[in-house]
């Protein structure tokens, strides 16, 4: 294992220390681990908190700042954070306007955030959870834990963070988050595996001419393995899975603040259709350089155009990664006027910055 690390046990702590040194505009707690904006809580503004396993940087810590997240909770590498992290982060940044938890749909993340929501609620803080489940590589939700939360998370955090900055209340933020999730679909592939520092060896192995299609973001096995094909062919496979995905129906569990209980909500994501505008994210899994992402973007733009889908905004780079894995993912989020307005709003975080 060749990595820029010292002792394996300290990887996460030392990376957070480096982040703290580089970003005085962030407060970083090491025990429990959470990252907050200096100056929080902000009176009257909903605090947006996200979190998940580490190894996906810049997600989520790199998105803490003006116009995006108020706090992030990093778990161990590829392991969901624990409820005390969300609980302490929420206590540190919650205003009267309450706290929105953005949760990627993995059993571990979902359950730990649910536990945290109960704890935060019992402190008298208004709290709401929303789930991101956008990975079309997972086909059904009847026989699985449901679609994983991947690239749409980045776009959701930007859009909802801007809405909170502008003064949207907790319910409005949650509704907007639900909409962005419902409008978003993603799919990813790997050219190489990655090495979790604590494991010290690659999570899986691919032959020199093999790729893995339909991966998540934890080096977990994908849908299938195949021979390396030209970039255009791979992009077409992923993009068409997204563009042609039918209506996706499942039940999500959300916190009912009134009754302090969990309720189930049936949710249907409608397919993309001609005439839609989208925000596109062409994302590196960590080890793929931006030059190759542009080759991906080229084909994606062509495919969208052929279906009369307009890419209104785009982001090309490493935003939700799997350590040093080579590969990419595509995310498309249907964008209406409200979403575009908040996408364009100023943001100032370590990984995303414009307008300020």
């Amino acid at each position, binding site marked *: 294992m060749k990595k820029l690390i010292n002792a394996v046990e300290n990887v996460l702590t030392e990376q957070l220390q480096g982040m703290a040194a580089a970003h005085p505009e962030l407060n970083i707690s090491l025990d*429990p681990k959470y990252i907050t904006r200096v100056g929080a809580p902000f009176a009257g503004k909903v605090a947006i908190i996200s979190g998940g396993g580490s190894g996906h940087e810049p997600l989520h810590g790199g998105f803490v700042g003006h116009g995006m997240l108020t706090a992030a909770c990093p778990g161990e590498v590829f392991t969901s954070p624990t409820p005390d992290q969300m609980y302490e982060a929420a206590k540190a940044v919650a205003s009267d306007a309450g706290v929105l938890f953005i949760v990627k749909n993995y*059993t571990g993340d979902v359950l730990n955030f649910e536990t945290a929501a109960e704890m935060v609620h019992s402190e008298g803080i208004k709290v709401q959870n929303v789930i991101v489940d956008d990975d079309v590589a997972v086909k059904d939700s009847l026989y699985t834990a449901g679609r994983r939360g991947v690239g749409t998370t980045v776009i959701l955090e930007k859009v909802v963070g801007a809405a909170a900055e502008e003064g949207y209340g907790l319910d409005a933020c949650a509704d907007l988050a639900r909409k962005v999730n419902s409008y978003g679909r993603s799919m990813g592939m790997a050219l190489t595996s990655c090495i979790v520092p604590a494991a010290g060896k690659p999570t899986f192995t691919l032959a020199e001419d093999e790729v893995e299609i339909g991966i*998540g973001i934890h080096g977990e096995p994908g849908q299938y393995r195949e021979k390396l094909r030209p970039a255009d062919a791979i992009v077409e496979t992923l993009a068409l899975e997204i563009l042609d995905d039918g209506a996706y129906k499942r039940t999500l569990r959300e916190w009912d603040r009134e009754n302090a209980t*969990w309720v189930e909500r049936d949710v249907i994501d409608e397919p993309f259709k001609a005439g839609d505008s989208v925000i596109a994210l062409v994302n590196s899994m960590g080890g793929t350089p931006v030059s190759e992402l542009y080759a991906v973007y080229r084909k994606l733009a062509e495919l969208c155009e052929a279906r009369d889908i307009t890419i209104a905004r785009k982001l090309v780079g490493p935003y939700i990664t799997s350590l040093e894995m080579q590969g990419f993912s595509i995310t498309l989020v249907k964008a209406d006027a409200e979403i575009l307005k908040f996408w364009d709003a100023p943001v100032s975080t370590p990984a995303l910055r414009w307008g300020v």
Partner: protein
Amino acid sequence: MSDVITKAQVITWLENCAALLETQKAYLTELDAAIGDGDHGLNMARGFGKVKEKLPSMADASIGSILNTSGMALISSVGGASGPLYGTFFMRASTAVQARQELEPMDLVKLMEQGIEGVVQRGRAEVGEKTMLDALIPALNALKSQLEAGAGLSDALDACVAAAEAGVRSTIPLVAKKGRASYLGERSVGHQDPGATSATLILGLLRDVVKGSGVS
């Protein structure tokens, strides 16, 4: 042995859990690597390590309070899917026994019932989905029906553990429908569920302590 479980036995049981999960770390992790992300052993060892750290300060506490503190320690240190599930199990179990200093056999049934109810509420899984419930629910059923049929605690616990072990084996041919393993679909068949395995190890240690064969 008498037909009650003392507070000292509960403490010994939890200490033994920490010790055994440490030695079984690699085994559980290997099971998880096959159908999950290969951390279940690490998660459980870390969690019960934290539980063990809390025990010395619990000498004067009630059994309910010990279980509650253990659950909180698990929740705040395990992470992943199993952390909130095991944590919830212990915290809910604690509400069944509250301030008690020793447990009657039927208290154990109530404790497990409430704990399992918490796991089901949190994880929304049911028997047959290849999770820890495939061990826990048959174990509870066996314990309860033996006691109701008049068996002693020791025999009932033997039946309970035997049912858990059968439950673990029953997970092998199952297709996972919950947790990370569910993404594998058919490819999860042929592998034993790690969470069901750790649950069975924990129940086995309870039986051993109650029967006096557990290390103190």
